[in-house]
């Protein structure tokens, strides 16, 4: 079972429905210890980093995510869920992230409009098993006012918006995407399918 971490923020129905469309069974999980039974975990998030981080920690998800990471359970962070993989955000300096990667999240500057809303092409700079069907130049749907910056060697993709921004980070068993794969049409479904097949959650071969 793929667990979608439900800490009360964001459009979780979309993530579940998109995973269903690639043949994966996913459940919303509100009880942190239930993550121990998950074969893969999606960490979503939308809106304000501080609000997300507070709710995420208050509900007790942080130790369970760390445990899952330790066991090598595949984890996909989406949007603010990707930002939570870092140490913190200038959107709310008092709220910590998971610190799986070094770095923090900073306000988009130098762009005519903030938030960035819409489809933008990614520049693919690295490989990852779950990016096997993603090509350099593919368009994804972005909605964000902040973007992560890291000194770790985990950058797999960037996006141009008032400068080169981090769009994809990852390492073994872990991937974070600033865009919304569940809202990025066929490109997003391809990414979700590759993630979903990293575990046993795919019930049948998929064809559309």
């Amino acid at each position, binding site marked *: 079972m793929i667990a979608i971490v439900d800490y009360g923020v964001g459009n979780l129905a979309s993530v579940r429905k998109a995973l269903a469309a690639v043949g994966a069974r996913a459940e919303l999980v509100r009880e942190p210890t239930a993550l121990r039974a998950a074969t893969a975990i999606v960490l979503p998030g939308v809106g304000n980093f501080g609000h997300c981080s507070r709710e995420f920690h208050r509900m007790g998800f942080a130790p369970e995510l760390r445990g899952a990471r330790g066991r090598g359970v595949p984890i996909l962070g989406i949007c603010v869920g990707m930002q939570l993989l870092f140490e913190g955000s200038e959107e709310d300096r008092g709220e910590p992230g998971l610190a799986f990667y070094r770095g923090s999240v900073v306000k988009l500057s130098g762009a005519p409009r903030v938030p960035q*809303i*819409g489809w933008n092409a990614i520049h693919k700079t690295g490989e990852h098993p779950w990016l096997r069907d993603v090509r350099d130049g593919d368009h994804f749907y972005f909605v964000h006012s902040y973007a992560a910056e890291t000194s770790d060697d985990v950058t797999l993709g960037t996006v141009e918006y008032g400068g080169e921004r981090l769009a994809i980070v990852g390492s073994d068993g872990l991937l974070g995407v600033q865009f919304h794969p569940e809202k990025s049409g066929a490109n997003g479904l391809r990414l979700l399918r590759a993630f979903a097949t990293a575990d046993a959650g795919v019930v049948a071969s998929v064809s559309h």
Partner: protein
Amino acid sequence: MLTKRIIPCLDVKDGRVVKGTRFADLRDAGDPVELATRYDRDGADELVFLDITASAEKRRTVVELAARVADVLFIPFTVGGGIGSADLAGEILRVGADKVAVNSAAVRDPAIIGEIARRYGSQATVLSIDARHVADHWEVVIDGGRMPTGRDAVAWATDGVARGAGEILLNSIDRDGTKLGFDLAFTDAVARAVAVPVIASGGAASAADFVDLFARTQADAGLAASIFHYGELTVGSVKDALMAAGIPVRPRERAFA
């Protein structure tokens, strides 16, 4: 580079797409999910559903519509049309819509903008503005274009953003249904006044109208309804024209297989 968005709009009443001109002479144009799927295949970047059902059933039908669309479509979509409370906005967002658009209700009680933005984020909060050119400015009109408010549309857009709206959806009542092209002066006045994305609508009849919109204003997206419904124009052909004019658009995706 961030691409310009092409957004088909579907007016829905009692679960069916209707379209005449925007607010009168309604004709049945089919099942919203079927049409939405067709637009998705044709390269639509996003969809807007305006639910104009006025009955007591509205609450149920509008949430049901959002849920049905989210089951089969994996591009962003907005639901608007008579959304009068943050609670209803929440129900619509929870079943899979990405954004909710408020219009008349926000003019009557602007606090609803801040309430939706506070609960669900500015990215989910669209302020939809219908306006008409009067003397030297554009005046906000509500209730489907029937009721003038005396309010200046540019000032209202600015106020709405300050209250938490993350996007502005403009509709020129003067141009709506006229096929005279977008109201470029109105669109640009608002797009220059706010720092959030602006969607233009009203009057588009050809691919050239979309080229004009993006070449001559700072709009981020263009929306149209009936010209797409009746096959007079396809999203794909609009994008081809934009690409030829050097305007960035999302190219056709490789099919999911």
